């Protein structure tokens, strides 16, 4: 059977460098399909989608809230052609009720071990409207390796430099962070993959630069250390969300190839300052993630925070606006207080203000968001800072003998589009 798997496009954030990474949800899902399924994958962010009847069944994989209206529109067109459409992925789970009218089926939960039944139902014309596995997570040992072969690889290069591949070593999160829906999506139990399964998958990934997309690796110290020890021989370099700040863990992470981490910066405390320094002491870069618009933030707080970021020698910073996604405490609080004024999911991209902040107007928060980006990158652009971080990993790869030079056949294109290369001196 011909299965068209689609990853809908979304509008990229204003003023930021666009990097299209090979999407993770679709390749993880593709691994759960039986071998007889002929998968045709289209990432609409890097290639055009032609909607026609050349397929038997359509799957739409959606990660972001800002993707869902496009996903619905695509499904509507396919259904007009008489082709059945099933939705899955993170934002399908967050917006399940609204997605139902656009779907022949929605899949809620994790699809490992489940798709034979779904396809059997489709074949026998008894596809269910909802496949609900929210309460029934599969054995974590069934996960992977992801089907990265479905990707059109050449489209994930920027001027000849390959983008990182995404990988996950665990699911679930026992933390209960204010703006986050992960515990709803993946459960509150931390579910680490068996180390040998994680390594088995890493060995299949040719790319030597990765993004480990686990919610937090810092949920089980012993497992985390074992994972890093096992990764050392693979000589991959990677970025991730937070890792545990114990010296023995950081030392192992650095040996295992930790390139840089995303670290939430929520105040101007010595705790944050020291945490950044600690990562740097182990040769690990830091991209600060800064959430603007929290109720305890005044305008002065935000301005002070920006100054602080410039003091603490962050390698990169990513500013986002607090966005009340469904199934988060942020959503619950904002709904109770009637503070959300915009329910257009296209605008739920963490770059647009959709609620009334407590200590300033929505317009002022929006201005401060742009001010934060412009100020942090005033003396060195985002591209220049990224180049420095990139140069670190290139140096390491050269030392290790794992460096691969850029692909000159793709030097004049960026994610499938022709671009002009500017050779600038730094």
């Amino acid at each position: 059977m011909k299965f068209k798997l689609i990853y809908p496009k979304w509008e990229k954030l204003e003023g930021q460098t666009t990097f299209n990474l090979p999407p993770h949800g679709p390749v993880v899902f593709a691994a759960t399909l039986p071998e007889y399924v002929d998968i045709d994958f289209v990432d609409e962010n890097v290639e055009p989608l032609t909607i026609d009847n050349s397929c038997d069944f359509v799957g739409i994989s959606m990660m972001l809230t800002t993707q869902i209206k496009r996903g619905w529109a695509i499904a509507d067109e396919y259904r007009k052609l008489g082709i059945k459409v099933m939705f899955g992925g993170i934002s399908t789970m967050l917006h399940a009720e609204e997605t139902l009218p656009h779907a022949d089926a929605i899949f809620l939960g994790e699809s490992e071990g489940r798709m034979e039944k779904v396809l059997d139902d489709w074949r026998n014309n008894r596809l269910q409207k909802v496949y609900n596995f929210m309460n029934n997570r599969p054995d974590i040992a069934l996960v992977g390796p992801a089907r990265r072969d479905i990707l059109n690889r050449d489209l994930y290069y920027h001027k000849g430099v390959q983008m990182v591949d995404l990988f996950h070593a665990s699911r679930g999160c026992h933390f209960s962070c204010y703006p986050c829906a992960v515990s709803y999506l993946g459960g509150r139990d931390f579910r680490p993959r068996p180390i040998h399964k994680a390594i088995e998958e890493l060995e299949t990934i040719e790319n030597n630069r990765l993004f480990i997309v686990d919610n937090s690796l810092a949920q089980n110290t012993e497992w985390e250390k074992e994972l890093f020890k096992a990764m050392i021989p693979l000589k991959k370099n990677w970025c991730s969300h937070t890792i545990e700040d114990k010296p023995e863990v950081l030392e192992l992470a650095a040996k295992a190839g930790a390139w840089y981490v995303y670290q939430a910066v929520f105040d101007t405390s010595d705790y944050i300052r020291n945490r950044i320094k600690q990562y740097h002491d182990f040769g690990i870069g830091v991209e600060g993630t800064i959430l603007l618009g929290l109720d305890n933030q005044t305008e002065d707080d935000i301005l002070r925070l920006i100054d602080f970021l410039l003091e603490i020698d962050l390698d990169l910073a990513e500013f986002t606006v607090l966005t009340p996604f469904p199934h988060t405490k942020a959503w619950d609080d904002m709904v109770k207080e009637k503070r959300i004024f915009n329910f257009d999911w296209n605008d739920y991209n963490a770059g647009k203000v959709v609620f009334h902040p407590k200590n300033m107007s929505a317009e002022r928060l929006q201005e401060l968001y742009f001010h934060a980006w412009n100020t942090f990158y005033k003396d060195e652009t985002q591209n220049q800072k990224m180049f420095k971080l990139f140069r670190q990993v290139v140096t390491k790869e050269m030392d290790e003998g794992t460096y691969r030079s850029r692909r000159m056949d793709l030097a004049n294109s960026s994610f499938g589009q022709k671009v002009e290369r500017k050779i600038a001196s730094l």
Partner: protein
Amino acid sequence: MLNNKKYLDTIYNYKGEWGIDSQCGLKISSAANGKTVIIATELYDKNPGTSVTQWNTYLATELCIKNGIAPDKLIFIEHTPDKGSKLAFYNETFYKVDFEWDGKKFINPNWEKIPKETVEKLLNG
């Protein structure tokens, strides 16, 4: 971690959105004028499923039916407990939730933040 269990007599298990196993703290108490106060406490990390806020209409309906409470005699309070965090959004709050009754279930929740003193008065008559 819940620092204050004053408003919680029992842990109540319910099926949340898409049947997901969920839990909240529960206190049911008689108030003056023949009404019944239900305080549903959000358990955060201990709630594996749907939040009280997201599920309040179903939760309130279910609790009224199970406990023989007439819809017009219900005072439903959502309680978020003090997590002992320095982050302000984990401070203790109380919201009185008014619903409409469609003949079979509660719909259209409307929240009103109330001070602890009001909750105390409701509980103590």
